[in-house]
């Protein structure tokens, strides 16, 4: 009797300790969760341990990006910069930044009365560089990780084993897999060279938008943002900056406007924000998009077979 009683108490104690340990353990299993808590738990200056580093963010001005040429310039710049292959089969496409329908991207935020034109309005989408990214949580090799210094969700194409778990985990469909060798589908110049020095990928790895980390490391800005400087009237269509810096343009926009982010209820904390026009009719009135997602047709060079 005594024995079983003691055993029971011991078990009870162990269970309590186990539960007590278990919850923080589970939390610890989620990388980056600390950052979320820190952000939620009040002003950063009161918690010295939680002084946030840099967190790059992008604000997409949906209204300005309704113009076909603006979106085309963005996608074109990205494609060229990163030697993104143009694979005809939509099932095997590689997309870093592309445009999709408003109704699909913000499916939670439309209703039965949203005009069809608004539902079908094109919106630019890319990797959200989430504050608590589920893709990183699941990656078995650390091939994708969040840079501590500036919050970019990076991809190490040298380490990726191509298990595609991150694609299953990403709630935004931002990740593409190289189902085949992309080289033959990368745009080449007349010498048969890809347009950029950016390494093409090999088959069997996952890739996605990196906010042009390699340019940022050299003090530059993302290629898409830079490209828009050449497009008249596109100022502010994409604004890139440090969301943790209260002085930045991004912070200013976020504090002055109501912005949307994709699927906020999932708690991933996207860092791509959408500045939506005040009135929906503006969207509805916009010329309907002739862009079906990836790679707008423009006067670009031939694609090698």
């Amino acid at each position, binding site marked *: 009797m005594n024995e079983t009683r003691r055993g029971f108490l011991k078990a009870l104690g162990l269970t309590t300790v186990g539960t007590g340990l278990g919850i923080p353990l589970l939390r610890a299993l989620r*990388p980056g969760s600390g950052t979320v808590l820190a952000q939620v738990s009040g002003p950063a200056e009161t918690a010295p341990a939680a002084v946030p580093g840099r967190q790059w963010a992008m604000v997409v001005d949906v209204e300005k990006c309704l113009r076909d040429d603006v979106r085309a310039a963005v996608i074109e710049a990205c494609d060229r910069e990163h030697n993104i292959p143009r694979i005809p089969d939509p099932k095997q496409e590689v997309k870093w930044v592309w445009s999709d329908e408003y109704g699909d991207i913000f499916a939670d935020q439309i209703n039965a009365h949203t005009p069809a034109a608004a539902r079908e309005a094109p919106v630019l989408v890319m990797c959200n560089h989430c504050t608590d990214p589920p893709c990183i949580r*699941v990656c*078995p090799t650390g091939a994708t990780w969040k840079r501590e210094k500036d919050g970019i969700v990076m991809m190490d194409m040298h380490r990726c084993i191509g298990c595609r778990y991150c694609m299953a985990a990403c709630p*935004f469909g931002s990740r593409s897999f190289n*189902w085949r060798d992309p080289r033959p589908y990368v745009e080449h110049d007349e010498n048969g060279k890809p347009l950029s020095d950016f390494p093409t990928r090999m088959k069997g790895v996952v890739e996605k938008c990196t906010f042009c980390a390699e340019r940022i490391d050299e003090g530059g800005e993302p290629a898409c943002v830079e490209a828009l400087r050449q497009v008249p009237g596109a100022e502010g269509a994409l604004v890139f900056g440090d969301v943790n810096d209260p002085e930045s343009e991004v912070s200013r926009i976020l504090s002055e406007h109501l912005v949307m982010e994709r699927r906020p209820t*999932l708690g991933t904390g996207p860092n791509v924000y959408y500045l939506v026009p005040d009135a929906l009719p503006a969207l509805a009135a916009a010329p309907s998009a002739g862009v079906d997602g990836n790679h707008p047709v423009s006067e670009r060079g031939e694609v090698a077979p």
Partner: protein
Amino acid sequence: MIQNVLHGGRRYWGLLAFWGVLILIGGLAYSHQFAVGLQVTGMSRDVSWGLYIAQFTFMVGVAASAVMVVLPYYLHDHKAFGKTVILGEFLAVSSVLVCMLFIFVDMGQPRRVMNVVLHPQFHSLMFWDFMSLSGYLLLNLVIGFLAIEAERKGTPPPRWVRPFIYLSIPWAVSIHTVTAFLYSGLSARPFWMTAILAPRFLASAFAAGPSLLIVLALLVRRFGGFDVGARAIRSLGTIVTYAMAVNVFFVLVESFTAIYSGIPHDEEAFRYLFMGLDGHAALRPWTWVGDALAVVSLTGLLIPKIRHQERWLVLLCGGVFASLWIEKGLALVVTGFIPSPLGIVTEYAPTAPEIAITLGVYALGGLVLTALYKLVLNVREKTQLA
């Protein structure tokens, strides 16, 4: 002892040759896939996991089900399972092997497979799955071989394996739980994100695995002249019955939550399965056939008079196995990707190379299983003669 696998009649070698041909075809298909990439499969940007991962998930269940003979035998001293235990353990060995191969053939960069160990990420369930599967393979290999070696020598197995046998019991539960967590922790996929996934996996595993074991045991009796005993078959039948009942209940519970709550994301997957979505309904016939099989088999199993007749039992077990294969090995993984996070329904159908590789992997498991069972049979034959 292992040279015993070379002793066999024409039928045995014929079976090995049959597996060999399938392995060869699968191997050729895989070398093609290795050369040109996963483009040869039917998977896509939206449905990024397909037949391979689905078979992996299903076979983890079959592997875990060995616990259903090990546990009653070692923990409850259920003597009837004395002759079945080794069959269960070797079934686990070959199933885990199949699981690992399915993961391997699904990889985009198979040469980098060791990165999982070289750069371990403790927050990734994939890492834990890798660990638990390897551990389980090792456990069952060691336990199985020591048991059969001991039997051959006519001595009890060494005492130090006892703790490993006990360890293999929770370990079996863990492999399928971890596999379920692989899915159920993804907020992006509401179809999988349910706490009942792990229990459901275990229930379906404990129905599918023992079903297969019953069929295998009867085959071994018919062609190998080795009888595990009617009592063992009967006990296994009972296990299948209860596990299947629990599984059906879990599925109903899950369906209720998703459908009654009416949350579009949760509901859409079920609508796709049973009715089709946006004009896409590739899985609809499978779903209905699978569910019909499940209901009919379960009904039959629940009637003791039918269940206790071996002819019927085999049929019912086949039905249970097929329905669970449709549920887990076909519908579960693909439906998780439908619709995509952007609301698009992309359908998936495996291609010929994909099916060839899948059959090749199964054939490799079949080959290993055949050889291991032959080992058991040869040892039994000799000890019975002696």
